[in-house]
């Protein structure tokens, strides 16, 4: 967990560079409220303390990075309550939650306040640090452009460097790739889930391109737009809510990618990755069982209570 938090720091610095102090304020509020709700819950129910495992901090950071920079300051607090108390603690705490808490909170906020979550400011615009910004220039995200069948407003280089309207943490592809390489080197995340996830989306974008300027552009835009890379690299690889076996991981990544493409092309919201991972979370155990059965012919994988 600590390594994950270390890799989040450059992403946070870059988002502060693009969106100002507001990015830091939102992230700080999110982390503090996640940790606070977890400590409060454990204390009220007289359970052993679990704040030390830093998972609440990771949840806070991931939740904040999936918000647009113009979200009100109380947004992460509500999301933190939903993520930590309802999705994580009420299901049994760390290691027992079925759904990824940060992602579930993002979906909860998207469904409850869709207007706020889908208005993205242009980078390098001054935003107030604490007050809710009222007048700001909104940019059209690449996903909205692709959905309408037109060319995105940003060039490929801008998408790669991250100076595009988007979520706080999902902006810079280059920093996310560097962070992912570091985590892969340290063996914290596995290669199978991101490879299958992004590979499936790329393949679908190549076979059914949405960008009018050709297949290669379509693949690159689809892969770099929205929060796909962030979710595939840091959220879908969460060890609690992802499979353990390699075959299971590949299957999980493939299904997540397929669902992302279907939701992006035919769904209501322009972004589909967060919904796709949440939809695949309940099937993780079944995928592990299938992989184990394939590996050990006739063997079964049982869920053992500790």
């Amino acid at each position: 967990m600590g390594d994950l938090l270390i890799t989040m720091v450059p992403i946070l610095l870059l988002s502060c560079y693009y969106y100002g102090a507001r990015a830091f304020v939102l992230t700080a509020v999110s982390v503090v409220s996640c940790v606070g709700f977890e400590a409060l819950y454990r204390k009220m129910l007289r359970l052993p303390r679990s704040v030390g495992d830093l998972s609440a901090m990771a949840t806070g950071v991931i939740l904040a990075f999936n918000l647009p920079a113009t979200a009100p300051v109380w947004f992460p607090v509500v999301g933190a309550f939903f993520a930590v108390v309802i999705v994580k603690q009420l299901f049994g705490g760390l290691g027992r939650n079925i759904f990824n808490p940060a992602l579930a909170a993002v979906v909860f906020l998207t469904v409850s306040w869709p207007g706020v979550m889908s208005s993205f400011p242009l980078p390098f615009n001054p935003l107030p640090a604490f007050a809710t910004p009222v007048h700001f220039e909104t940019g059209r995200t690449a996903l909205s452009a692709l959905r309408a069948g037109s060319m995105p407003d940003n060039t490929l280089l801008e998408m790669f460097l991250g100076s595009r309207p988007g979520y706080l943490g999902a902006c810079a592809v280059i920093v996310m790739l560097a962070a992912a390489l570091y985590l892969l080197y340290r063996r914290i995340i596995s290669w199978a889930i991101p490879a299958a996830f992004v590979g499936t989306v790329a393949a679908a974008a190549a076979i059914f391109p949405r960008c009018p300027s050709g297949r290669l552009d379509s693949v690159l835009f689809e892969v770099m737009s929205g929060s796909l890379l962030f979710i595939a690299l840091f959220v879908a690889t969460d060890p609690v809510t992802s499979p353990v076996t390699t075959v299971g991981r590949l299957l999980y990544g493939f299904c997540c990618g397929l669902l992302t493409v279907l939701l992006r092309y035919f769904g209501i919201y322009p972004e589909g990755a967060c919904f796709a991972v949440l939809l695949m979370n309940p099937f993780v155990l079944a995928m592990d069982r299938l992989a184990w059965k394939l590996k050990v012919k006739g063997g079964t994988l049982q869920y053992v209570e500790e």
Partner: protein
Amino acid sequence: MWRNRAARCGRTLWRECASRNPVLVRALAVSPVLAVTVSLKNGVLISIVMLLELVILFLLRALFYRRLPEVLRGPVFFAAAGAAITPLWMAARYFVPDVTAAVGFYLPLLAACAFAFVATVPAPAPLPVQSSPEAEEPGAQATAPAVRKAAGVRRIVHALLEAAGSGLGFAFAAVAVSGIREAIGSGTLYDRVLPGLEKLKFAFLLLPPGAFLLLGFLLAAVQAVHLRRKRRTRAGEEEETSGNDG
């Protein structure tokens, strides 16, 4: 004697409504409570229709449970539930057409829920058997039919009380959920705008997952109250016994 009877009636009513609340304790008929309670008007409508349906169904059950062979009891009462909801549904469509349209098909679904209530209540006790005239003394012959009749009346009254209790329990759950959902979800209550909550419009509560979460928290609150009462009565009994010993 009448005070005893009144106390027994009150106890039955309270038991069906609170400690055996069909929605909040036994988790029956959760579907209409979750689906249509987006406004208080809907909640009140389904509560009234459910209460009338339950009264009809419990009465039929009190009258015909023992006369039917065991195999036929389920199908007959299920059909009776469907038959009983039809005039109620038509009346609702006549009197409040817009609210009935908003509730949709969950109003006739209340028939299935009422059947679930009725099927999970203990069977009515058998009436005392009418003894043959020769075996009894001459003085007791006159009382046997009267005793049977009184038991029959008691059974009907008990059925009505159970129906009223279940209906009131369902009404409490439906009104509570719909009131909270409308107040916090759309800032109105019974279509009157609430001044303070207008800004808070928390649309998540109007959607199905919000309903599930809300009902879950309500169920947890009810269970917490029950547990605390049980703990308090158990502590009270222990105090009494220890006081008697010491």
